[in-house]
């Protein structure tokens, strides 16, 4: 059986009627995030879903009730598990439970949402085929308001259900998800568990709002009656494990951290978003398994901060995106465009950071700095560049100008000697500032790696850093625009606020490393920076840097699949 002949779940007919994009993301791309409404629905369904009640019929006051009946139909091409089938006076009818409250019509009588009606009707069609007798009506139980609403299966509704099945088949063969709902249906996006994946506002902004009424106001922000769908930024802590010799196990659903047989700490898994293992820490298989189930990624980093690899929960099943990625990133024109966007954003961010930190007394903005002027010139020249190699060259010139001034960014403390920076060096970094920069880039690379994996990209096929052996090129590409604003900024904060002193570093032979205490301070500052909220310059709402990484990765995905015409890099104001 191929994807196009697989039976469509009855549930999917509900989704496709509600929002075609929702259907595509859930059933073609297989993304299924859970939010409070989904979780509530599972709770209301637990009677039906529990195994011991399945396929057992109970009779109570003349009504026979069967729960969890699986039916499928080759002719219709659909299948489903029916919550409840009741039989009374020789008539059978489906009863479906929904978590929400029943909508009320103008007369104040409870009714049924259109999309739920389609689902219920599809169940009736299945029953008619399986049991060979007509099913004229069904019931929907709204757990939220505890109301049971009858529904007649009219011809119009049956046609609508057939149309939904056809629509599913049409959508299945598409390469990219259909457009988000237009502004007048935007209310449906609130409370949708996929809002953070679908990003309706951002996509609509990029394709130019299709509604002609706001042709001169492309952003939904300017439409007073449309509220922005702002997905909850992913919360939860990042757990860093760096105590040598400790081990992590799990009990029930919390992690237990032990050292020398003594319990050191317990961390509930639900409070954790990511785990970073730094150095010699053992993580048990059971713990890894549970983390994979809860979609918590585990990154392994050496004590020196080199990113070794990640343990990612089952990768996103997004094959069509990966196909599109390989196609798009083999096209030199597309690579050039993307490289330009990314380098433009990086240079602009470097210039901003430079101007901010070198703001002098006499000059309020710092734009008089020769390096700032130089980068400005490079930005102007970037538009005329015609090959990825010359973009690389421009990036290199920018970096030279930027790191030429980097030493001046560091505030020298009044007491004694602080930190010096002359040139950027690495592999290994030879002085504290370079060590910090390398460490920060490694952390950022780890987060970018996680972000591109979550979206479903292949992290090794990039558009800018091409063909570097064994490097997660795409993660590095995505990282470029964030280097100055996240990594460099953390380094400057740590040094200029005197959170770190030269005593927090060990220099051994040629290499310079952070001590344990220094690493602790570093992790705290890095996460603090990532949770800082900034306004996205294009979409105009506030989100944390951590979320921003994912948003940019998703927009890149939308570009790769041809949903939006351009990819815009993130630039701070």
């Amino acid at each position: 059986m191929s994807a196009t002949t697989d039976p469509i779940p009855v549930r999917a007919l509900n989704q496709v009627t509600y929002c075609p994009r929702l259907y595509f993301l859930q059933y073609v791309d297989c993304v299924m995030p859970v939010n409070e409404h989904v979780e509530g629905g599972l709770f209301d369904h637990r009677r039906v879903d529990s195994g011991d009640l399945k396929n057992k019929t109970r009779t109570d006051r003349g009504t026979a009730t069967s729960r969890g009946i699986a039916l499928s139909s080759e002719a219709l091409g659909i299948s489903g598990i029916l919550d409840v089938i009741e039989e009374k006076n020789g008539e059978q009818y489906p009863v479906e439970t929904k978590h929400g409250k029943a909508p009320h019509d103008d007369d104040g009588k409870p009714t049924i949402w259109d999309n739920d009606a389609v689902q219920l009707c599809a169940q009736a069609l299945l029953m008619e085929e399986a049991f060979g007798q007509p099913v004229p009506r069904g019931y929907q139980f709204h757990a939220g308001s505890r109301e049971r609403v009858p529904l007649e299966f009219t011809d119009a509704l049956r046609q609508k259900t057939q149309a939904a099945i056809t629509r599913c088949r049409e959508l299945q063969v598409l390469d990219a998800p259909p457009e988000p709902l237009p502004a007048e249906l935007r209310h449906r996006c609130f409370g949708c568990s996929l809002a953070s994946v679908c990003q309706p506002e951002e996509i609509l902004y990029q394709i130019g709002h299709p509604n002609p009424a706001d042709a001169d106001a492309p952003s939904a922000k300017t439409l007073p009656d449309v509220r922005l769908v702002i997905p909850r930024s992913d919360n939860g802590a990042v757990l860093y494990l760096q105590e040598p010799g400790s081990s992590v196990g799990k009990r029930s659903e919390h992690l237990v951290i032990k050292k020398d047989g003594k319990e050191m700490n317990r961390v509930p898994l639900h409070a954790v978003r990511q785990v970073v293992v730094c150095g010699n820490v053992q993580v048990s298989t059971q713990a890894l398994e549970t983390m994979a189930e809860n979609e918590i990624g585990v990154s392994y980093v050496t004590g020196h901060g080199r990113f070794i690899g990640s343990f990612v929960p089952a990768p996103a099943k997004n094959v069509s995106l990966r196909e599109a990625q390989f196609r798009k990133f083999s096209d030199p024109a597309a690579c050039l465009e993307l490289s330009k966007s990314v380098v433009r954003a990086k240079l602009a961010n470097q210039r901003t950071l430079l101007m901010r930190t070198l703001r002098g007394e006499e000059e309020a903005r710092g734009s008089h700095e020769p390096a700032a002027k130089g980068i400005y010139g490079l930005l102007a020249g970037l538009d005329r560049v015609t090959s990825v190699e010359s973009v690389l060259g421009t990036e290199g010139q920018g970096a030279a100008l930027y790191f030429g001034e980097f030493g001046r960014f560091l505030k020298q403390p009044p007491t004694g000697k602080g930190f010096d920076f002359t040139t950027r060096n690495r592999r290994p970094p030879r002085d504290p500032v370079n060590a910090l920069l390398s460490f920060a880039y490694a952390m950022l690379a780890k987060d970018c790696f996680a972000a591109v994996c979550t979206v479903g990209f292949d992290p090794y096929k990039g558009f800018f850093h091409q063909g570097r052996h064994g490097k997660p090129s795409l993660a590095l590409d995505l990282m470029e625009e964030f280097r100055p604003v996240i990594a460099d900024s953390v380094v400057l904060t740590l040094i200029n606020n005197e959170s770190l002193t030269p005593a927090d570093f060990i220099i051994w032979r040629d290499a310079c490393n952070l001590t344990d205490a220094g690493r602790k301070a570093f992790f705290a500052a890095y996460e603090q920076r990532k949770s800082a909220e900034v306004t996205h310059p294009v979409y105009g709402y506030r989100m944390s840097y951590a979320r921003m990484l994912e948003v940019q990765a998703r927009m890149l995905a939308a570009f790769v699949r041809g949903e939006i015409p351009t990819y815009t890099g993130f630039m701070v104001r």
Partner: protein
Amino acid sequence: MVCYDISNPKRLRKVARTCEDFGYRKQFSVFLVRVSPTDFVRLRSRLYDIINLDEDQVLFIPLTESALQRTEAIGRPTDAYNKHDVVIIL
């Protein structure tokens, strides 16, 4: 904050373990739980299925940020409350 009063030791252990999955133990039957709305629904439905609705009780008390800030303890020391709960370093 989640507090409970369970009359059966078997159920008590189950409730305690479930609470530990979501938050930090403050006292024997008092937990401080910081969860997203999703995880709250999850926690509530799990506890609902564990407890005996006639004999036991679980109390969910929502706390505001300012109420948490003004929390104090006398007697044995309690862990300092950390507002920026973004990183745990061990």
